[in-house]
Each structure stands twice: as structure tokens, then as C-alpha cells.
């Protein structure tokens, strides 16, 4: 009862034989060996498994691998290039937007779609935009700052200070 599918992940094709019940996150982690996408709650609450499917942020623990046949999948592994980090990675790095790092891949993939649709979001729009991603370390403030920094960077604007803020 298995199905042969081809997943296009970060531009590379991965052909695999899967049971229809295999979740996309398992296909990405186990069959394609791309373990940057994390499994947190496994109930589509936490957002750690967030990836992009045809540019749309998606919780890959609640999508079947067979549903992604023929679609363009982007994971955290595809962000950095030979030229360096993706602006969102740079933003998270410079603004201390992570402690343990578990939520970070999902958080960044979600932020990419958010900035794609709304290149210059307000703080409220950012907080609302990442409402499907849980972080248990940072208290979110530095994540919001990182997304604001990335927004400025991607639009070629003057970059905000990345000095730590004590509040």
C-alpha cells in the first residue's frame, strides 16, 4: 500500500516509497535526512515543524507526505547560501533571538512568509504573525526585534541597533 513520491526540498528531488499515513515532517527528517525541521508538540500547536510549501508556511506534522507530491518545499537547510546567511538567520543571530534554538527553524520559516506578504510589519502584526509558533525561552521580544531588523535589512533601510536592550 506504499506510494512512490518525489518531494522537491530546497530545489533537490527526493524520491521515496512511503505509506500514505507518513507525515511530511517524518519524510523530511527521516527519508530526506534533513533534521533541521523539528517535531515539537506533534499536534499542530507549537510551530516547530513549520516549513514552506509553495511559499506558504505550513505545519508539516499535520500534512501527509503524499500531499506534498510535486510541491516546492523549503526548509531551514535551504536558507543559507555560499554567499552567507539568509537575512532572517542574520537577524536572529545578531539580535539574540534564540536561547535553546528548538523553535528557531520554524520561527524563521514562518517569518519568511510573513515578510514576503508584509515587508514592513508593525510590532503587532509580527506578534500576530508568529502566533502559531511557541518559544519557551526568549519571551518573544528578541524574536520580534529580529524580524524588525530583517525587515529593515531586506528593504535596504537603515539597520536598527543590535545592542542588547535591558528592560
Amino acid at each position, binding site marked *: 500500500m506504499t506510494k512512490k513520491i518525489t518531494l522537491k526540498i530546497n530545489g533537490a528531488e527526493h524520491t521515496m516509497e512511503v505509506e500514505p499515513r507518513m507525515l511530511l515532517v517524518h519524510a523530511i527528517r527521516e527519508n530526506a535526512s534533513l533534521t533541521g525541521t523539528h517535531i515539537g508538540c506533534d499536534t499542530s500547536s507549537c510551530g516547530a515543524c*513549520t516549513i514552506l510549501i509553495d511559499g506558504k508556511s505550513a505545519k508539516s506534522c499535520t500534512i501527509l507526505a*503524499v*500531499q506534498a507530491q510535486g510541491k516546492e518545499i523549503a526548509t531551514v537547510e535551504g536558507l543559507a547560501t555560499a554567499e552567507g546567511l539568509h537575512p532572517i538567520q542574520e537577524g536572529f543571530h545578531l539580535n539574540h533571538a534564540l536561547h535553546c534554538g528548538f523553535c528557531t527553524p520554524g520561527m524563521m520559516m514562518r517569518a519568511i512568509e510573513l515578510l514576503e506578504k508584509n515587508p514592513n510589519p508593525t510590532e503587532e502584526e509580527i506578534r500576530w504573525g508568529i*502566533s*502559531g509558533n511557541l518559544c519557551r525561552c526568549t519571551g518573544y521580544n528578541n524574536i520580534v526585534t529580529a524580524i524588525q531588523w530583517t525587515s529593515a535589512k531586506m528593504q535596504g533601510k537603515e539597520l536598527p541597533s543590535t545592542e542588547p536592550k535591558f528592560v
Partner: protein
Amino acid sequence: MIAENFNYDAPTSLEEAIALLHQYGDDAKILAGGHSLIPMMKLRFASPTHLIDINNIPGLSYVKEEDGYLKIGAMTKEVEVEESEIIHAKYQIFMDATKLIADPQVRNFGTLGGNLAHGDAANDHPAVMIALGAEVEITSKDGKRTVGIDDFFHGFYTTAVEHGEVLTEIRIPAASGNYGSAYHKAERKVGDYATAGVAAMIQIDDQGRCTKAGIGLTNVSPLPFRAKRSEAVLVGSDLSEAVIAQAAQYAAEDCSPSEDLRGNVEYKRHLVGVITKRMLNKAISRAKK
């Protein structure tokens, strides 16, 4: 968590999907956005032997005004409703509601048809559709039939959609004249079901009289609930503060919430009263703009 095994088909036409439903019998389920069904399958609350994925069928996703109706294709995603120009201009209730449904990633996949066909009084669109007086188009091998929203919900996870049928379109009487609508739910956190939710629609004539009113309640009764006494007191009235207070009180009295982790019965009735009043005022102010 892994679901029980099943067969998977992804037909590319409605005819093919309906034929598969007949071929596989009662154990087949339609897969739309999947963000209610797949979690249930992972928890093994549901174990269909066949999944029929209708995401590859073209023509089931649209938001348009036509023949005096706002027509929404069953496979229209929450995000597409959220970003629709017609919705922004005339049906703000959907802006209120979609923002409160799950989270952005889930709204990228969850569909309006799926939200209704799931048949859960805790979902938000049932109350919205009740307030707006929607009807639902259901397609089978014999053709299409239309069911009014008041006859659509039969019980927990049960709707008017029979075996071998697919929900294909939602139709809402088009906004006309001074028309306003609003929705709010109290939720403990993003993605939670409503502690209580209220959808309101109001139409007012040029003299300030209410000509049409709809009120639907979320998650405070076993079935999505229409607050009929509240509607009756509004229609024909001048929508004075006293009338709105009366409508809110009726809604609080007539719903039948049950106690759970979100609150006790008294608290939920209180919430229904407060939110009904606020949503009526919001709908009225939108109608007057």
C-alpha cells in the same frame, strides 16, 4: 503519533471523487485542509480506511458575488477569505472570525467547507453562517442540492452531507443597504476553541429601523446555535440600548453551555451576554458607515 494505515487517492475531478466515495463505502473520508481530520486520525479518534484528497480538484476555491449571493467555494482556504477584497469591503465578520481561527499556518490550509462539514459546534464558521443566513450546496452523483444552514448541523460531527456527497459551495445572501456584521470569541490562547463566541449581522433601513438580524453562537450548545428570541426582539426595533440589552440577555438565557476547563455555565452565559452586546454594537456601527 501515527494514524492507522489507509489508502490514499487524489482525484482531479468531482465526478471521480464521488465515484470513489461510492466505491469505498462508509469508511472513506474526504480530505480537505486536513487540519481537523489528520489530528483526529493521529489520535485514532478517526480511522478511515480510505482518504479521498480533493485538493487537486480545480474550481472549488473562490470568493465572488453573483446572483444576489456571496458565493464561497468549499475548498477556499481561510487565508484566501482573509485576503479577499470583497470580504474586506462588505463582510467584515469574516475578517473578525478568520483572525481568531487557529494560527496563520493552519489558516494556510484550513478550508471553509471543511470547517462546516466537520460538524463541530466549537468551530467558528457555523455561528458566522447562522448569523449571515447561509445555505450550503451539496453535490452527489444525482446532481446538486441546497440545504439551509439551520438544517445543516444534525449532531456532533454529523451534518446534512450524506454518504456519497461532497459539500461544494457556501452561499450567503449578498450584503445590501446598511449592512453590518461582526464576530468575536473569547479564547484562552491562540488556537483554542471558543469559551464562547458570538456572530451578529444587522441590516438597518434609512429611518434607523432594523430590517434583518442574525445571531449565531459558538461552543455554548451541542449544536451551533441561533439565538431566535434575540433576533426577534431586534427586527422592527430602533436598536436602542434597551433593545440590545434585551437581545443580549435572551442569548445568554437561551444557550446551553456545559462546564469544562474553559469555565462554568454561569461564566459562559455571562460571556455570551457581554459579547452579544458588543458584537451587535459593532455590527450596527459598521452598518451605519
